[in-house]
């Protein structure tokens, strides 16, 4: 089986700061992969390189067997890479319906049918439980619902790879439960790459975890392996479990 996504020697330096410093990363189709690491480990920079928001200093990115290193971001989205923003980035003055209609109308192949557009948009809203708020301006939604809308926009692109950058930040426990169900459902049709700080959530959801530290991969493995990994405990988990206990 060919990997869905592969990076080789991927680097991004900001002046003297090596945000991403030679990452070799392989992602198989159907996985839920979590990327964790301390603040400043380069997680967001890494996924931004994958989705094309920033260009790498060195290295290659291969998606579905095709080199996409030099492909502009909007073309990568069309290849099936969807990115949901860490800082909620919806269209606040447009209705919730318009927010999802935008990704849906771009993916429609027939291009004309009003019915298909409406159905696609309503489906994405129903999956995220936002259908009854379709007419509300997105900026008037509660924060948790804006996070869900952000995910709905990603889903509406019908991606092969869905990148979620700290999706549960600021959500209540109840909202997180809904979110877990949603990600598990999405994983049946798309590969999920998840950046997340909530450790119990990562341990429950991820098939495999990649730990980044100072721009490099520190460890990679199943949740159990990562939990037992001494290097990871020292670099990262120790402080987090300490925080969780406090």
């Amino acid at each position, binding site marked *: 089986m060919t990997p869905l996504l592969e990076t080789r020697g991927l680097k991004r330096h900001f002046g003297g700061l090596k945000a991403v410093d030679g990452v070799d990363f392989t992602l198989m189709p159907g996985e839920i992969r979590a990327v964790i690491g301390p603040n400043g480990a380069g997680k967001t920079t890494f996924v931004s390189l994958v989705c094309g928001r920033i260009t790498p200093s060195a290295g290659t990115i291969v998606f579905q067997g095709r080199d996409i290193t030099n492909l502009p971001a*909007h073309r990568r989205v069309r290849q099936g890479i969807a990115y949901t923003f860490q800082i909620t980035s919806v269209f*606040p003055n447009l209705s919730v319906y318009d927010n999802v209609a*935008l990704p849906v109308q771009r993916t429609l192949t027939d291009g004309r049918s009003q019915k298909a557009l409406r159905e696609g948009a309503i489906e994405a809203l129903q999956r995220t439980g936002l259908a009854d708020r379709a007419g509300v301006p997105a900026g008037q939604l509660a924060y948790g619902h804006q996070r869900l809308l952000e995910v709905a926009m990603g889903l509406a692109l019908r991606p092969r790879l869905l990148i979620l950058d700290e999706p549960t930040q600021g959500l209540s426990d109840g909202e997180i439960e809904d979110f877990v169900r949603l990600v598990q459902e999405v994983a049946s049709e798309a590969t999920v790459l998840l950046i997340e700080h909530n450790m119990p959530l990562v341990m429950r959801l991820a098939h495999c975890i990649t730990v980044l530290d100072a721009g490099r991969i520190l460890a990679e493995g199943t949740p159990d392996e990562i939990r037992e990994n001494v290097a990871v405990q020292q670099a990262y988990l120790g402080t987090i479990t300490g925080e969780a206990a406090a």
Partner: protein
Amino acid sequence: MTGEVSPLRVYLLHAAIILALFALNFMLPPYHHGLMARIMVLAVFAMGYNMLFGYAGLLSLGHAMFFAAGMYGTGLAITHFGTGVPAAFACGIVAGAVLAFAIGLLALRTSGVAFMIVTMMFSQVFYLAILYFAAWTGGDQGMVLQQAARVATLGPLVLDLSHPVGRYMAALALFAIALFATLITVRSRWGRVLVAIRENEERTRMLGYDTFANKLAVTVLSGTIAAAAGSAFALLFGYVGANFAAVQYSILPLLWVLLGGAATTLGPLVGTVVMYYVTDTASSYTSAWLLIVGVVLIALVLFFPKGILGTLRERWAGWLP
């Protein structure tokens, strides 16, 4: 913009506006009849500006060059090549479209304040070029289009554009086409993409849209509509002048659109009418009419920051496109 509002009411309103303007042809006294024809042509210019500024959120300070490109494309074709009205009109539109494409390619590499400065700079270059090539353009004297050159013949149809009724009807026809073209565009899926670019360009890009190509397309559309207005102005009023390429004609459409309501289909008309009549009334009382215009504008910005129709839509009529 939700695509959910019943379109019937919207289309009826726009058709009623066109009918009302048609009826005014028979009701207005001669002075206002002539003024209204002028206002309709300039409202088309404002509608072109509104496509770019109101919907796509790109603030150009150089739209005088597109208006003037249409005007001079038409004027030069008639003066130097003796073309008929339809061919001259086509020359004006093509000149505006080509110029908008070239300027868009360069200016859209910038955004925000830099975009304003770059468009203004290109527009000044265009203005100075008109003055420099005076042998062709007539320099600051401009060109007068003779009455005989302004009679349009399309098969059996003869339309004298220098006659008040012919002029009014031609202006109304252009206005109606531009209005419905705007209405259809902004209610379309592409209109939704333009608004998305205005609201959050980075997010739009990350939904898979080539934002540069979309911005270039709307720049060309906007420049072409402005050029159509400029060309019509030359044909209807018989004068092609460099002052229409000067910086004030880049500022005026911005004021008209802000006054009427940016990103509303009828705002450009309302803004142009109000501004024209305020100017006209003020200048009949005092030579300090610019002061009165200024005070009115400041009051509007303070109390109606979204313009007349923008405020109306926000408070009472959310269905207005």
